[in-house]
């Protein structure tokens, strides 16, 4: 029973509906202006086709869930099923084997006991397959027929088709919005569960992070869930070290590209810079972990700092900063391009040099947009996972020394949710609380930044 067959059938029926709708609409085309039909034939055709395809697709969706259950029911009702063990692993294995053979995905049964079930499975599958096809065709004929009967010269097929198209587009955008809401909802739900075990005050202000995944959930020690070292590590790596790298380099490259570069140079350099944004973060991650981190450690040891670690915050932060450069640069580029050229001409006409004009007029005028760009960059950096998973430390550490290992919120989430973990354990739930905090912070940063950018745009329009 493959849905693909049904979808092909739906397409075919839709095409038939389209052709018949158009044929009927042609029949009442008239040269007399008084009798001109309200819509062109193609809209009548689409009207019928949509009435065929949409109900059929809805049925297929439901049927693809329903059919396997119906098959199972009828197999279990067969006399052969009475021989099966009552429940448990064996029973499931036999049923699975029989189904695989019946669907021709396995050559033969391994357990002899399953053999008896193959025939009932085959029979049930083919029965429901036929039922599915028949119902599909019936629905298509009924809906398409009704739509076909409604076609008249004064029928406003165009309006209906346009409205349907609008509804489909609306549905598509709702899916994205609802998914976001769903993610947010599940995050809140799990976070509330976590805060039932560890109080928000302990979580937000505690300075020791060391969830004990082995401890029993009843004996949770809230003092092991202080997230401050993680927040600090996240901010230090993502918002301090990365930005120390990304802001100057990003801004200076934007200034060069917008103000100094010859158009031909710009057309080469800008795409090259943007390639940086396309490098998979896991590649940055191993560059940080395997190349940069040992170099930094060796350099630090060479000048006498023996405590330097190969999992230093510095390595992760620098590589993250490089990753963010194109982001800062393109935002700065856009906001400087948005400053009216009259401003630049005014300054040049005063006898200001190019760099004076940039420093004193263009840059201040573009500043709100640049700041917003940096906020967006920070929100990306602190949500970035792969680089820090590979290059930062899994152990939380509250220190201001960039050569020491540090962990971030995202690293802990990955650590807590990978592997086999009980979903009720506070250690697992704490990952959701961390995710929730991260989500709220990046949401706030994005929200503020987008508002600033919007107001900035309005100021020059």
């Amino acid at each position, binding site marked *: 029973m493959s849905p693909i067959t049904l979808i092909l059938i739906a397409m075919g029926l839709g095409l038939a509906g389209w052709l018949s709708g158009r044929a009927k609409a042609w029949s009442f085309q008239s040269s007399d202006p008084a009798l001109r039909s309200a819509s062109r034939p193609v809209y009548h055709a689409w009207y019928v086709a949509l009435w065929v395809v949409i109900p059929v697709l809805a049925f297929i969706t439901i049927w693809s869930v329903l059919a396997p259950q119906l098959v199972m029911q009828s197999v279990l009702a067969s006399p052969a099923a009475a021989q099966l063990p009552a429940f448990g692993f064996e029973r499931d294995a036999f049923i699975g084997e029989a189904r695989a053979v019946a669907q021709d995905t396995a050559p033969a049964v391994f357990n002899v006991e399953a053999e008896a079930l193959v025939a009932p499975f085959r029979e049930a599958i083919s029965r429901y397959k036929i039922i599915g096809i028949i119902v599909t065709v019936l629905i298509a004929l009924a809906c398409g027929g009704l739509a076909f009967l409604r076609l008249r010269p004064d029928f406003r097929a165009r309006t209906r088709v346009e409205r349907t198209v609008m509804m489909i587009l609306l549905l598509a955008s709702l899916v994205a919005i609802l998914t976001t809401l769903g993610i947010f909802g599940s995050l809140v739900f799990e976070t509330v569960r976590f805060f039932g075990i560890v109080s928000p005050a302990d979580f937000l202000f505690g300075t020791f992070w060391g969830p004990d995944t082995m401890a029993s959930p009843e004996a949770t020690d809230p003092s092991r869930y202080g997230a401050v070292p993680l927040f600090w590590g996240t901010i230090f790596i993502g918002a301090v070290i990365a930005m120390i790298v990304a802001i100057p380099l990003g801004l200076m490259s934007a200034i060069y590209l917008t103000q100094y570069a010859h158009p031909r140079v710009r057309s080469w350099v800008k795409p090259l810079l943007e390639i940086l944004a396309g490098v998979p973060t896991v590649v940055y991650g191993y560059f940080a972990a395997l190349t940069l981190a040992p170099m930094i450690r060796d350099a630090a040891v060479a000048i006498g700092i023996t405590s330097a670690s190969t999992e230093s915050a510095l390595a992760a932060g620098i590589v993250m900063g490089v990753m963010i450069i194109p982001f800062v640069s393109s935002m700065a580029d856009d906001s400087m391009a948005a400053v*009216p050229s009259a401003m630049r001409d005014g300054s*040049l006409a*005063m*006898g200001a*040099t190019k760099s004076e004009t940039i420093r004193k007029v263009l840059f*201040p*005028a573009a500043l709100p947009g640049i700041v917003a760009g940096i906020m967006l960059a920070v929100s990306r950096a602190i949500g970035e996972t792969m680089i820090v998973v590979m290059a930062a430390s899994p152990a939380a550490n509250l220190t201001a020394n960039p050569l020491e290992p540090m962990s971030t919120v995202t690293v802990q989430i990955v650590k807590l949710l990978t592997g086999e973990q009980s979903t009720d354990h506070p250690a697992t739930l704490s990952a959701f609380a961390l995710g929730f905090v991260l989500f709220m912070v990046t949401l706030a940063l994005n929200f503020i930044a987008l508002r600033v950018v919007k107001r900035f745009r309005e100021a020059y329009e």
Partner: protein
Amino acid sequence: MTVIHPNMTDESAKIRARDVSVFYGDNKAIDAVSIDISPNYVTAFIGPSGCGKSTFLRCFNRMNDTIGTARVTGLIELDGEDIHADRMDVVQLRARVGMVFQKPNPFPKSIYENIAYGPKIHGFAEKKADLDVVVERSLTRAGLWDEVKDRLDDSGTALSGGQQQRLCIARAIAVDPEVILMDEPASALDPIATAKIEELIDELSGRYAIVIVTHSMQQAARVSQRTAFFHLGKMVEYGPTSDIFTNPIEERTKDYITGRYG
């Protein structure tokens, strides 16, 4: 064919242009224009849109340099010095030849900072007390002091359009230029603001050589003493404003003045 009225070539000319042509890529926007600009008068450039009068004006402070595709040929002298010569510093040239644009373009800074901008970058005034003097003097000359003296810290962009344009004029005279170029300075303003700008031009003439590009023939007649008529990249006629408007020699000038085209 250019008609130049008698006594228009001037030994004491502030700006002297000879055979100046301007190209945008392969397009010739200005074709071999020669003109003397007197320091004592307001000179108006008139002509229909696209005739090249603004392009020609922008040659005098080398603003065409900022357009990548533009190329200027011919000789332009300021007080007998070739402005394209190697020893002519474009920064100093623009300090001597100020410019006011069609659309008011105050910087997004305070009124005070807008005026102080030029003196600061050229190092004319460093100390606050000196700057205060320059700001007050420039705003007074631009007829804006009484309107803004209590809110010098407000943003220049918060002023009305006419005030913004007078702020731009004050900004231009703050560096004490010898010439002020005005590129349709009143075309974005209402009639009352326009009248104030024209009044101001009248007051400033004599102290500065002023060259104004305008669409409005009435404006040219009101504010200028010399008028040059441009058409299709060529200067058609140049003479005393009264002669150009009452007694033009060229047929095309007459047609334009009487509103037959343009």
